[in-house]
Every structure is written in C-alpha cells, then in structure tokens.
C-alpha cells in the first residue's frame, strides 16, 4: 500500500512537472540533459555511434535533410563546422529524421547523392524508424544540438540554430554554434544556450 502511494505520488510529480516543461510540440532534451548514444546507418553503409569517436570531446549533432530549403541553405555551413571543429574534438554528425515514405527525396539513395554532390565530410545518418529525433526533441530541420562528453555521458550544451541569418552566411552577426563550441573548448560557459529559428517540421 505504502509502495503504491509512493508510486502514485511519483507519477503525479512527473505529470505535473512535464506539464510545465513541455516545450512546443515535443519533449526531449533540455540543456544540461545527458543524450543517449545511437547506432544509425551512415550513407556509406556503416553504423555510426558517438562511442566510435574515441578522441571526441563532444559533438555537433545536426538534424537535417535534403528537402527542406532551410536545411539546404545551411549545408555549406554545416560542412564548414565539421572542417573547423572535427580536428578540435567536436565533429559534426548529421541525422536525417524524416519519414522517407512521406519525403522520398530524403531516402538513403538521395542522402548519398546529396552528400556526394556537396562533398560532405561528416557522417549523414538515417534515423531509421524515427526513434532518435523524438528522444532529442528535435521538431524541425535544421535543428542543432551541441554535446560535450562528460563523465556522466554526452551532455547537451546548446540547442537551436547555427547562426542568425539563414539567408546570407556573409551577413551573419551571431554564430551561435561556433560560439558554443568555442566556449566549451575554452572551458567556459556557453554564452547563448538555446536559440530558435524557422525550419521545416519533421515529417512523420
């Protein structure tokens, strides 16, 4: 009986808390949470997990796709992030979250073709069964999570946009992701931990 009451109370607490922390359409990670690892198929046929990156200090996880104009507008900037930060310990891992029955232009063959055409140097993974993006709480493409490896696991340090100008990379005034990773590399607090930007809803 006591046990049942405890369980009920715990449930009540969870329900109450979750009604306050509900962020938009999805739940998912907040800054400070520990992100679970994944094992997803890459465009080269291999399976990729965060634990494969032995020297990584963290990751720049990018939920993106081929078919969203906002995601396309950021492709070159995602590639630039990987070039700049992979060697410093923060590689990019891109994950394609859409249902490919709804968006055939995001299927594995299309992902492979796009990565080849654009010369992506980062893994571009298929969220097979759409199981990973809901855990993160991604709602759109592009949607970025900067993680830092800690003793507890990969801790979420930044959630949001790459920068503050989707239209024109040369007119960017705030480089949110770079600022976050630079801060982590310097052992400092991330200056802006969450940002918002327009994107394409993830197709379910």
């Amino acid at each position, binding site marked *: 009986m006591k046990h049942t009451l405890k369980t009920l109370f715990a449930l009540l607490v969870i329900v109450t808390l979750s009604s306050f922390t509900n962020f*938009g359409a999805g739940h998912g990670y907040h800054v400070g949470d520990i992100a679970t690892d994944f094992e997803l198929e890459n465009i080269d046929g291999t399976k990729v997990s965060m634990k494969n990156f032995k020297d990584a200090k963290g990751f720049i996880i990018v939920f993106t796709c081929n078919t969203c104009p906002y995601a396309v507008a950021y492709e070159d900037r995602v590639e630039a992030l990987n070039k700049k930060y992979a060697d410093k310990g923060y590689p990019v891992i891109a994950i394609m979250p859409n249902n490919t029955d709804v968006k055939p232009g995001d299927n594995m063959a299309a992902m492979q073709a796009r990565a080849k055409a654009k010369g992506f140097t980062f893994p571009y993974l298929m969220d097979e069964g759409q199981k990973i993006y809901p855990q993160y709480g991604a709602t759109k493409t592009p949607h970025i999570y900067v993680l830092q490896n800690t003793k507890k696991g990969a801790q979420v340090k930044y959630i949001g946009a790459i920068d503050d100008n989707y239209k024109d990379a040369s007119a960017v005034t705030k480089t949110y992701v770079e600022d976050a990773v630079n801060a982590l590399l310097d052992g400092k607090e991330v200056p802006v931990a969450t940002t918002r930007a*327009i994107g394409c809803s993830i197709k379910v």
Partner: protein
Amino acid sequence: MKFTFLIVVINLMFLGNVTSMDILSEEEDIENTSEDLKVFDFEELQTYLSHKDNNKTYVVNFWATWCAPCVKELPYFEQLNANYISKDVEVILVSLDFPKQIDTKLKPFLKKKTLKSEVIVLDDVDSNTWIPKVDENWTGAIPATIIYNKNKKEFYERSFNYQELETELKRFIN
C-alpha cells in the same frame, strides 16, 4: 568585389528615394514588388498579431510554398475565412517564403490558387528574437497558427484539417 562596392555606392546615392530607379539590389526589388504583396519585417507584422481594439477574431497561419503540410492545409484556412467572414473572423496567411523566391515561386502560387485570405510575407532573419514574440512555445517549425481576439490567444504548432480548425475557432467565437 569592385562591382559590389559600386552597387553599395549607387544604393547609398539613392537611399531615401526608393520609388522608381532601384532595380539594382535585391532589397529594393522587393520594395517594387510590394505594391500587391506586403513584405514586412517582424516589427511591421506585429500589428497583425495583436489587434486588441476590436471585436474580430484573427486566425494567423505561418506557412510557405515549400512547406508541403502547410500547402495541404491552406484550403482549410481559405474555407474557414469564407465561412466565418460574416462572423467577424479574419484569416491572415503569413508566408515565410524566401525573399528571392517571392517573384519566382510565391506570386505564381498565389495567382494559381487565387487565395482570398490576406497574404503577408515576413522577411526577418532574426528569428531567435521574433519567434518567442509570436509565442513562447513555438520551436520554429511550420506550419504554425495563432488564433486570437481581445480576450484570449492560442498557439498551435501543428497541422489542421477543416474540422479541427473550426473546432478551435469556435472556442473563440461562441
């Protein structure tokens, strides 16, 4: 590089006189096309998001021609507008199409669909500032819709069919 500089100089010369001669840069190009289509930054749009001084109910839908679920639900918003216009309901469609595609994509789309609801283009890159002002819970995915009148406001980050949309609207007008 020199060419860019030249454009900047020419634009500076004509700044404040943007009526007829400015076909040189993208920005003024948008000005010229705005005769029949309003292109606003967020500050200008904000008046459409907070009419508090009348008895109307406003349904504001954020969409874009490149957003498939948005295009799919547009007819429902049109239908709602037609059915409830006599009941002081106004539908406003805020397009987030890229400014470069206003002439090539948005305008042909509007022409083909002959939308009756008012269409406004929002061109404001600083989304981190304006998205929370539309609604604190908006993650930035579209389609997204707000329904409001002087008494209350609701935000929806989701797709609608006609029945769902009408059900939500009725919570405001009954």
